């Protein structure tokens, strides 16, 4: 099996070796896609390389999103930036403000005469990467949204028939799971700030920050600590932590492990984790995917969730030949075939309408139960000021601060109100620092 899988790679490598003899232009692409995702990235690049002779795209895995952004900035300062780099959604404001460092995608496409239609992308995706004057600055690549994974075996054992729709229901189910002995822990989460604050705010139509979460101006300030529903939600989780109805699983995606190992019966994390969870759960337990719960007291109808994931930024400092190749490659990447393949393989949502239609036509969503949850949740209703996403400077640091303060709430050393107030205060200091540093 392994060997057979390798054969096309060998063939393609041989091909790209022979083409490089004709001095093809190398395009470096730094990314943060690990494991199976990383292999898929390589396969996509190989496919592009095999499709033409002029350019060779060289993907380089640079560690986590944060590592990659760090490396990109350091390399840019040293005059060694890659042509393309993958930046996570919360790094968007940082990249947008770096006008001399980036080559806006719409402009690149214009300059190289490459066809490019921003309206081909899903609205929730397009808006995230579009500047206030209406230009798309980066190329969406992998977008996901948080969903609820639940362990069907544990649910059956506890006698719960349907997944919870609201947080109140989830709380009841979580306690039931633990008390009945069906699971050691009810709920855990990955990406705590993204799932429990950022998306909680969007889905329940609550502001996370002023100025439409930063979309209307760089003087936005955090206000999640002033929303009673948000504070109450964190307080609930902190209460549940005591009885293991909720277990905090750490930052980034380390909470996923507690679900994969069968310890926790529910998990809120990215829709893109589906493949990884499937592999870990194989032969151990069955799982299914449900929309992220909403707070029935805050909103009558849940609104759209917001995206996570990353987009591709083109960096300044390359030759025209390289940029010609970059434009062609980005065009190739957003083609329906590549996008549909990528989305069905990974659990990321298809980022263009065409790719979505293609997957639907192929019957992907009927064949793969749960795969449609993410895209349905992302596209329900029209995004309002609380639901377009976040455009806040120094957001990676703000996420760290939030995680740090959530930890204090969950381990009981501070109340939810104290923890979130401090988080907002410290986060606002970051926003001020960002404002100062870009307004030079």
């Amino acid at each position, binding site marked *: 099996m392994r060997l057979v899988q390798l054969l096309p790679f060998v063939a393609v490598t041989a091909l790209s070796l022979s083409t490089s003899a004709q001095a093809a232009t190398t395009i470096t692409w730094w990314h943060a896609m690990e*494991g199976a995702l990383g292999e898929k990235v390589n396969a996509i690049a190989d496919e592009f390389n095999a499709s033409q002779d002029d350019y060779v795209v060289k993907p380089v895995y640079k560690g986590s999103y944060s590592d990659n952004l760090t490396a990109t900035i*350091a390399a840019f300062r040293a005059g060694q930036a890659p042509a393309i780099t993958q930046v996570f959604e919360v790094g968007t404001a940082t990249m947008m403000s770096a006008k001399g460092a980036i080559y806006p995608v719409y402009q690149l496409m214009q300059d190289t005469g490459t066809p490019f239609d921003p309206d081909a992308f899903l609205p929730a995706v397009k808006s995230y990467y579009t500047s206030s004057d209406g230009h798309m600055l980066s190329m969406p690549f992998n977008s996901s949204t948080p969903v609820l994974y639940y362990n069907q075996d544990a649910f059956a054992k506890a006698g719960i028939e349907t997944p919870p729709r609201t947080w109140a229901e989830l709380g009841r189910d979580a306690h039931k799971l633990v008390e009945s002995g069906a699971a050691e822990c009810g709920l855990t989460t990955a990406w705590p700030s993204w799932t429990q604050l950022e998306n909680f705010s969007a889905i329940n139509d609550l502001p996370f920050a002023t100025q439409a979460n930063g979309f209307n101006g760089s003087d936005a300030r955090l206000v999640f600590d002033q929303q009673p529903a948000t504070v109450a939600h964190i307080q609930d989780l902190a209460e549940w932590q005591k009885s293991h109805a909720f277990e905090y699983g750490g930052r980034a995606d380390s909470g996923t*492990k507690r679900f994969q*190992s069968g310890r926790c019966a529910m998990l809120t994390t990215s829709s893109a984790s589906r493949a*990884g*969870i499937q592999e870990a759960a194989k*032969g151990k337990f069955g799982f299914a995917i449900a929309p992220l719960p909403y707070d029935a007291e805050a909103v009558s109808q849940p609104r759209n969730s917001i995206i996570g994931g990353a987009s591709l930024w083109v960096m300044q400092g390359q030759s025209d030949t390289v940029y010609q190749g970059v434009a062609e490659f980005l065009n190739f990447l957003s083609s329906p075939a590549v996008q549909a393949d990528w989305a069905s393989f990974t659990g990321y949502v298809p980022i263009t309408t065409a790719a979505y239609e293609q997957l639907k036509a192929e019957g992907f969503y009927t064949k793969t139960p749960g795969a449609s949850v993410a895209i349905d949740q992302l596209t329900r209703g029209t995004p309002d000021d609380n639901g377009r996403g976040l455009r806040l400077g120094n957001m990676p640091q703000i996420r760290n601060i939030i995680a740090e303060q959530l930890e204090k709430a969950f381990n009981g050393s501070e109340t939810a109100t104290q923890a979130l107030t401090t988080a907002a205060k410290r986060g606002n200091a970051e926003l001020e620092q960002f404002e100062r540093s870009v307004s030079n």
Partner: protein
Amino acid sequence: MRYRRPGLDGLTHLLLIIGAVIFGLPLWLALTASTHSAADLQSGIAPLWFGDQGLVNYWQLLSQPMPGLGVSALRLLGNSLVMALGIALGKIAISLLAAYAIVFFRFPCRTLCFWLIFVTLMLPVEVRIVPTYGVVARFGLIDTYAGMILPLIASATATFLLRQCFLSLPSELFEAARLDGAGPLRFLKDFVLPLSRTNLAALFVIMFIYGWNQYLWPLLAANSPDHATAVISLKNLVQSTDTLPPWQLATAMTLLTVLPPVVVIVAMQRFFVRGLTDAEK
């Protein structure tokens, strides 16, 4: 003479054995875990005894690219070896020359030069990390072995130690060399080096371990997996996104990473102790 009581001696041995066992426990658990399958490890407590997947795991590690990194463990270990040897030999070479100049020559600013070197003790790579990256990048040395090695090879410790060593050589030696008509380089090669062998070996052990175990600098300076070292590769294995950490591979890789410096310490125990107590890092 020490107090000798049979009971006390027995207790001494017992406590030492307990100490040695406790200190060995982490490595023992890594060893047993590395012989189980991923599924075994994920379905319970880490086993205290060996499983039957050892060959499979180590073979996978050595024959296939590491998950997430795309380069083989052998390549990573090779990179570590290049870096450790480069740092150890580089430090010794330039410190040897510098100490030799300071001890056996008189020239203006001699004391100043010594102090300039000495002050580097105050500047570990951690405090100058951001600008050092900039300087190395300016020379185009990011992601090269030279870039990984050069910023770490200045050594106040080695210079200081070798200076002490040269100062303790008998001055008759110098007279003998002069009668022989030896110039500076021959004196270094034929007289000084042979007499400093023990010190050089001791320095080598300490510096090799220092180089092999570097973390922060190679993390930044090795920009692609092609130059990543064994030590920094481990985090990638354990903190894998969206999958359970493949502990069977992580523990196996840990053992392979630990092996070379431990072998050096055990095989050169005498030099190690000497190097440590002389060099004080």
